[in-house]
């Protein structure tokens, strides 16, 4: 018999599920849990805001592929966590979020720091639970880890009233730790139908998203592309599925994707979508996305099939396993006409971002930083122009090395997720590509970073505006830049110093590359500031609602 408490059950469950770091903030309603955690070997990372804690856990989960844990107290603590939960749902990130709740007798009385966490998180979590008895917690915790990791991963919220945490209980034994459920496979008949479509196609293309990247399907994707003589096109979340310099990697599709890719997909006659959900940022006007193509859609979540694009063959299952079963059925043959057509598009619509050789330009700084940090580096981004520039030129070599808020598009994601990435991968350099708008949304986590001393290098593109908003206002709102310019601008080097971090400002450097290298190779965190022209736009840009072929291009490429 095991004499324990609700809080100790949670702590022991975390240990049994391999959790060694949690991020969170204590408060009145989760004090027993923090007290119990202190009795274990689990390291508690004290974030400065619960959203930061959520994104730190996300950073760890995105790098490891395993569920990670964040903690918040009731009321405002849980409310602050909501954005990170919704973000994890949108990008299918496995999290177990444990919130404190007011004691059972106070629930429903509008008690101090009481909100309906269960109700609030239903639409934004994969699943959620309210613990009513301590004796339920062993099963609930196991369920939470199982659900978070099984099938399409996602966040699970466990709301635990304070008195349930403190409740004494006797257990017979600990349940076995959760294992992800095995996923069903498509039928042989469906696989054969898909193979027949592939075999008969003349202009095939592979579109890979986060689902393909997550399950490590890269080599299988490359093999299928080889057999079909097809390009591998990625979404933002699929970056790194095959290395950036792999001959089959055509680049990213969509709003700020490669022009030649956006044009090529207009002409494909078969699209194999692997773990991609036909998001509007990737497809542009969905009705005009790959208009001539039959679609084979491989996704672990059957609810994604036919949601945004009707599939001719829908294959539900783990992308790697489905591709493994599909590959032997697909005859390999060259398709020289299609290959030649794409080569022509690449020549006609060459993608040449400006300033690649200049470390004092946004693209140049990214390319130089990637080169200095080396192939093992992990990069996180914020949301906006910095994110799109990084997606366009950062040399992604493997899945799980480019962390970005793709679905929800949460500004403020970059810094805390970089802290999480660094916690999960000791010894690996981590770059946080951000803008002044995004950095200021979770700037408080610079204190967490300085305290932890992790090798996170913040690459700040400081333009004093909400850059992508300004860009859209320029193109779509008649150039009226309403409320997108910051009237006051922080002195970021001084701010970094105040937090106890090293900082370099490339604006005043003669040897920008040397200065950058010194900052990036020194131990511990650093902030690198680059002043950026607020009118430097990111091209190409597909206006919302337009077809991907209807890109706005930089003037010097206007013909493309």
């Amino acid at each position: 018999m095991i004499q324990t408490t609700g809080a100790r059950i949670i702590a022991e469950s975390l240990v049994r599920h391999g959790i060694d770091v949690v991020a969170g903030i204590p408060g009145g309603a989760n004090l027993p849990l923090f007290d119990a955690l202190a009795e274990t070997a689990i390291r508690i990372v004290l974030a400065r805001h619960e959203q930061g804690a959520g994104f730190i856990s996300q950073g760890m989960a995105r790098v490891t592929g395993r569920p990670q844990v964040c903690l918040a107290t009731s009321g405002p603590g849980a409310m602050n966590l909501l954005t990170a939960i919704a973000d994890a749902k949108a990008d299918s990130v496995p999290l177990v979020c444990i919130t404190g709740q007011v004691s059972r007798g106070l629930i429903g009385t509008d008690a101090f720091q009481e909100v309906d966490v269960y109700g609030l998180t239903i639409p934004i979590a994969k699943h959620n639970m309210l613990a009513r008895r301590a004796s339920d917690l062993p099963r609930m915790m196991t369920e939470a880890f199982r659900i978070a990791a099984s099938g399409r991963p996602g966040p699970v919220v466990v709301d635990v009233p304070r008195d349930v945490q403190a409740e004494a209980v006797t257990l017979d034994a600990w349940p076995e730790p959760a294992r992800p459920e095995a996923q069903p496979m498509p039928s042989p008949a469906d696989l054969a139908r898909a193979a027949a479509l592939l075999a008969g196609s003349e202009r095939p293309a592979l579109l890979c998203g986060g689902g393909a990247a997550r399950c490590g399907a890269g080599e299988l994707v490359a093999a299928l592309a080889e057999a079909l003589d097809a390009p591998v096109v990625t979404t933002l979340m699929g970056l790194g599925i095959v290395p950036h310099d792999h001959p089959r990697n055509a680049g990213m599709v969509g709003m700020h994707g490669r022009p030649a890719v956006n044009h090529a997909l207009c002409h494909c006659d078969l699209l194999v979508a692997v773990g991609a959900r036909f998001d509007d940022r990737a497809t542009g006007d969905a009705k005009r996305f790959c208009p001539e193509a039959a679609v084979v859609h491989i996704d672990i979540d059957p609810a994604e099939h036919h949601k945004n694009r009707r599939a001719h063959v829908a294959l539900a299952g783990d992308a790697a396993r489905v591709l493994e079963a599909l590959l032997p059925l697909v005859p390999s043959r060259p398709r020289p006409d299609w290959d030649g057509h794409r080569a022509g598009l690449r020549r006609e619509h060459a993608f040449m971002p400006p300033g690649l050789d200049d470390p004092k330009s946004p693209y140049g700084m990214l390319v130089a930083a990637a080169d200095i940090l080396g192939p093992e580096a992990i990069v996180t981004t914020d949301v906006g122009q910095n994110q799109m520039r990084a997606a366009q030129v950062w040399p992604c070599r493997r899945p799980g090395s480019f962390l970005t808020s793709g679905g929800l598009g949460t500004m403020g994601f970059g810094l805390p997720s970089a802290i999480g990435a660094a916690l999960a991968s000791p010894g690996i350099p981590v770059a946080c590509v951000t803008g002044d708008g995004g950095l200021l949304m979770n700037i408080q986590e610079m204190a967490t970073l300085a305290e932890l001393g992790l090798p996170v290098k913040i690459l700040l593109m400081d333009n004093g505006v909400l850059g992508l908003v300004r860009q859209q206002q320029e193109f779509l709102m008649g150039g009226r830049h309403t409320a997108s310019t910051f009237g006051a601008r922080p002195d970021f080097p001084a701010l970094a110093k105040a937090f106890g971090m090293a900082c370099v400002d490339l604006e005043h450097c003669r040897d920008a590359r040397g200065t950058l290298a010194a900052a990036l190779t020194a131990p511990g965190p650093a902030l690198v500031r680059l002043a950026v022209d607020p009118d430097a736009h990111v091209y190409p840009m597909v206006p919302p609602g337009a077809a991907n072929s209807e890109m706005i291009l930089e003037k010097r490429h206007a013909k493309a």
Partner: protein
Amino acid sequence: MQKPSGHAAKETARAVVELIATDAMDAVRHVAACLARRSHALLGLLCLPGPDGEGRLLVALADDGRIPRLLHELSALPGVREARQGEMELLDFQRVVAQGLAA
């Protein structure tokens, strides 16, 4: 009763979806949230919990051609063991509701 909206071309069609839930009362909120999130026009939702918590949910909604996809999504909800399109017509659904209220 919510007035059907959106997907107007097919909004006159109706369907009843039947769910088997491991915890019927718990599933109600998740099912309702899923329908709201996917913008389905909900016409009625009947929860029939058994003594041990297991039970059936009957969901009447406008059939705008998306029911097969919805069934995939509902059946993936934790706590929902099975989701299928019911044979029941809307009138039958209303009769079951009326019987439930009378009881």
